[in-house]
């Protein structure tokens, strides 16, 4: 459901910066369902990749073979991401807080003596800064959804409204957190993420229990549509081909 919801969030024709794993699966699902003209950009340097199976790594040969253009990594970041040419960036998170700040660096202890050392930033800080909008995809749990992240690897809305503008960040920031339980979106006034969609079969209490802060609920809370037969069969086919 998380993958299907992420795929549905992609409008046709947009340019999407994709990481491996769920974002790549969702983007490739979208390209076969609701967004046939979606443009996939992978940070390995492939613009407009059209893989016919799910790539197994960000540098999978299928990406270069099917891309409109293959460029070096500095060019990806400097000519394409930095100037704001990417519409949608997908990010994952080990921790995310109520203002959409993301931690993928260290958990617990301090930076030099962490409890858990995570992979680090990768492309995320500049994806979070520069894309017109960011979609975060992460499984919901109290450990992941925290009041305040231990380390800000990628900036969301900081501690609230106006901070992105004050820092001169040009991208729109995180607009959606898609989880296995529902969808969260930032409140326009406070920038705090509130629940806007419940996935089929999920109860509000489940989501609250899986959130480490006192989760607000949108007055327009609605229920995500059940995955269609087409979505499920395309998804199965994609996974089977890999």
């Amino acid at each position, binding site marked *: 459901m998380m993958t299907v919801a992420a795929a549905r969030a992609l409008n046709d024709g947009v340019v999407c910066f994709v990481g491996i794993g769920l974002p790549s699966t969702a983007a490739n699902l979208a390209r076969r369902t609701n967004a046939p003209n979606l443009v996939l950009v992978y940070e390995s340097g492939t613009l407009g990749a059209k893989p016919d199976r799910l790539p197994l790594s960000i540098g999978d*040969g299928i990406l270069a073979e099917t891309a409109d253009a293959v460029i070096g*990594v500095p060019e990806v970041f400097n000519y394409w991401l930095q100037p704001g040419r990417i519409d949608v960036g997908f990010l994952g998170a080990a921790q995310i807080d109520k203002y959409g700040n993301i931690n993928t660096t260290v958990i617990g202890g301090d930076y030099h003596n962490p409890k858990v050392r995570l992979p680090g930033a990768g*492309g995320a800080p500049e994806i979070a800064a520069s894309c017109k909008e960011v979609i975060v995809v992460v499984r919901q749990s109290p450990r992941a959804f925290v009041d305040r992240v231990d380390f800000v690897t990628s900036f969301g809305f900081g501690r609230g409204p106006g901070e992105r503008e004050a820092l001169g960040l040009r991208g729109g920031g995180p607009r959606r957190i898609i989880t296995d339980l529902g969808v969260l979106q930032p409140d326009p006034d406070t920038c705090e993420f509130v629940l806007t969609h419940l996935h089929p079969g999920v109860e509000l209490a489940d989501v609250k229990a899986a959130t480490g802060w006192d989760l607000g609920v949108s007055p327009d809370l609605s229920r995500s549509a059940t995955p269609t037969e087409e979505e499920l069969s395309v998804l199965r086919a994609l996974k089977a081909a890999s």
Partner: protein
Amino acid sequence: MARIGTLAEGVAAVVHDGDTVAFEGFTHLIPFAAGHEVIRQRIRGLTLVRMTPDVIYDQLIGAGCARKLVFSWGGNPGVGSLHRFRDAVQHEWPAPLELEEHSHAGMANRYVAGASGLPFAVLRGYTGTDLPAQTENIKPITCPFTGEVLTAVPALKLDSAVIHAQRADRQGNVQLWGITGVQKEAVLAAERSLVTVEEIVDELEPVPGAVVLPSWAVGHVAAVPGGAHPSYAAGYSVRDNDFYQEWDAISRDRDEFTRWLEDLK
């Protein structure tokens, strides 16, 4: 003009104890064989530089070759964590590992500045994150025309760089294609360089999307077919995704890893 020789000769000539060295290759064309030769030659005290440390640096770190890691994303791509890297950071095994941590955009620009003979690069990056607080190597810089504040990172000035490419000709001109990452920049940012190649050919037929490094900009070339395994060389091999999975099990346990290391030597 590049010197053509064996892998052992190339590593000995290019990678020295205490070097700041980059082994580059973005998922594709990672110079694993050269990394293994560094382990065999017991080269020590390295500052390892790489955007995505990957399994190759997990091996070098576990083998005790490194004292510092400069990087932007340290995972086993598509699999999970790098256990030797985590063990070094969390438990100083087999030795403490100093970290200098950046974003991909920052690292890519540091390579570009190094290749360009500049002391620093400017980018829109790191803003609002906790990364700048952890290093002296991320600083604000003001545009002298608009007054806008951006971010500066110092150039990577490497003692040595090691990459893998599809082929070279007998003069030592090097050709690589597919996903080419920051390999050209790494070689140009380094005092000494080693390129391992799938094969040495009489003539480099042009290939769409190829990067060519002229012989006079390359230090050493060694023919090492399969030298990117378990990563791949487009046109020559495919990625051994199973090995990346297996590495998770090998590297998770110090004893298991030590057995792997003994087998390598």
